[in-house]
């Protein structure tokens, strides 16, 4: 998996993910990237999932873990551009209600201010 971080309006960190978030290939990398941002005091994080091709239960677990660690530090973690199959995987485990999901980056970034 490839990750890149850019800063959006209001200091929101937009994390672009590309590839697979699966066991042994991206799951730990996601956690490390988020932890690094949190350690740097960057607590408003938007994960752009548009180019994520596959996710498995380990990847889902890491997403949940990241959500918890960001929230526990007083931050917010939201998702952008969920591919349909990842949406399905989050829906069947009722996790879709946990995450704020956006289709527009502008809207998503603006939502952190509210």
């Amino acid at each position, binding site marked *: 998996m490839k990750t890149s971080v850019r800063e959006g309006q209001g200091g929101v960190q937009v994390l672009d993910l590309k590839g697979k978030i*699966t*066991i*042994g*290939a991206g799951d730990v990398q996601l956690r490390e990237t988020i932890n690094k941002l949190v350690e740097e005091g960057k607590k408003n994080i938007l994960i752009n999932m548009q180019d994520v091709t596959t996710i498995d*239960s380990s990847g*889902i*677990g890491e997403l949940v873990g990241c959500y918890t660690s960001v929230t526990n530090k007083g931050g917010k973690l939201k998702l952008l551009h969920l591919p349909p199959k990842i949406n399905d995987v989050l829906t069947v*485990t*009722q*996790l879709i209600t946990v995450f704020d999901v956006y289709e527009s980056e502008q809207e998503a970034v603006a939502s952190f201010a509210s």
Partner: protein
Amino acid sequence: MSLSSRFENIEMAQHLCGKLLDGHEISDETRHWILMALREVLANAIKHGNAGDRAKRVHLEMDVQGEILRIRVRDEGAGFDPDKVDDPLAPENRFKTSGRGIFYMKTFMDEVRFQKAEGGGMEIFLTKNLAGGKEKEEKGS
């Protein structure tokens, strides 16, 4: 076939399963979920069954008879009691970082069965009716 306990081998097994499914008229959707269930059962065998011990093997059989896909996976670990696996939908488990793999297998396949293997380890059997099965029932309901 017999695989070493490495996550990289999941990709190879998925590729072979894809080849097995090639001759059958199934939707991309069905194919995707079968391969995800296969990924989950193999990851479970490597991570939990064999505890990542590369000296231990994961034994995999895949076959299509008629329209029924059967996958059998056996690890060389201590085995587990499937009735004691936490329900990932329970509110107290919602934020756990693991424990969803078996749930996904059960969601995406028609049948998932567990048994302790005779020579040790755990055997998991996955079945999918390629002609419809669960999807057909859900659409008809």
